[in-house]
């Protein structure tokens, strides 16, 4: 049970290039999320999904796209990379805690992206 897997771990892009950040889970959870974390800052929600076929914008969606064709996969697409997209990207899912007291965000290890 790997939990949440993200690839690649690191990537350097040139301005205007495109790439897809992969996120895969083996926990069969419906809710998945993409966050970015800039140096010294908290987490900002880019997009989220409540299940296969359903996605919605978060706080900072501009410059990104997502898809959710299966429960397992939630890729994040950058079409025209810009220096402002230099950040660490975390994929997460909502995991229900015991006794139904709430849900935690269970995070992947992150992808560090630099756009030059």
């Amino acid at each position, binding site marked *: 049970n790997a939990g949440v897997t993200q690839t690649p771990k690191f990537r350097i892009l040139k301005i205007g290039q495109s790439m897809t950040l992969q996120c895969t889970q083996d926990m069969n959870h419906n809710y998945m999320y993409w966050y970015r974390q800039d140096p010294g800052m908290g987490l900002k929600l880019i997009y989220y999904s*409540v299940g296969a076929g359903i996605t919605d914008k978060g706080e900072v969606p501009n410059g990104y796209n997502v898809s959710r064709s299966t429960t397992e996969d939630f890729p994040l697409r950058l079409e025209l990379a810009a220096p402002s997209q230099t950040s660490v990207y975390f994929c997460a899912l909502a995991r229900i805690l015991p006794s139904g*007291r709430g849900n935690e965000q269970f*995070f992947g290890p*992150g992808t560090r992206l630099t756009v030059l």
Partner: protein
Amino acid sequence: GESVGLHLPTLSVQEGDNSIINCAYSNSASDYFIWYKQESGKGPQFIIDIRSNMDKRQGQRVTVLLNKTVKHLSLQIAATQPGDSAVYFCAENPRGSYIPTFGRGTSLIVHP
């Protein structure tokens, strides 16, 4: 109030001391709160949670206190160890929501 700029609030303590990390939340409709720990180069990890019908919850060496009147949350770490060095985030969840709001984080540095 929360500081702006590129540097996280930082708490430096000596090994063995108790640490208290504070968080102000904004939404009075939030009824569920979580503290996360983020070590360097890793994703945030769950530490402890609390529902709004409680004002205190204890785990192993950690205690979370909730003051709903002033919308304040704190994380207490007893006998802080070098391995506790990390950034700590609080997160608030409105009732029934699966979209948490994260605080900016506090960097805890533990000196041996």
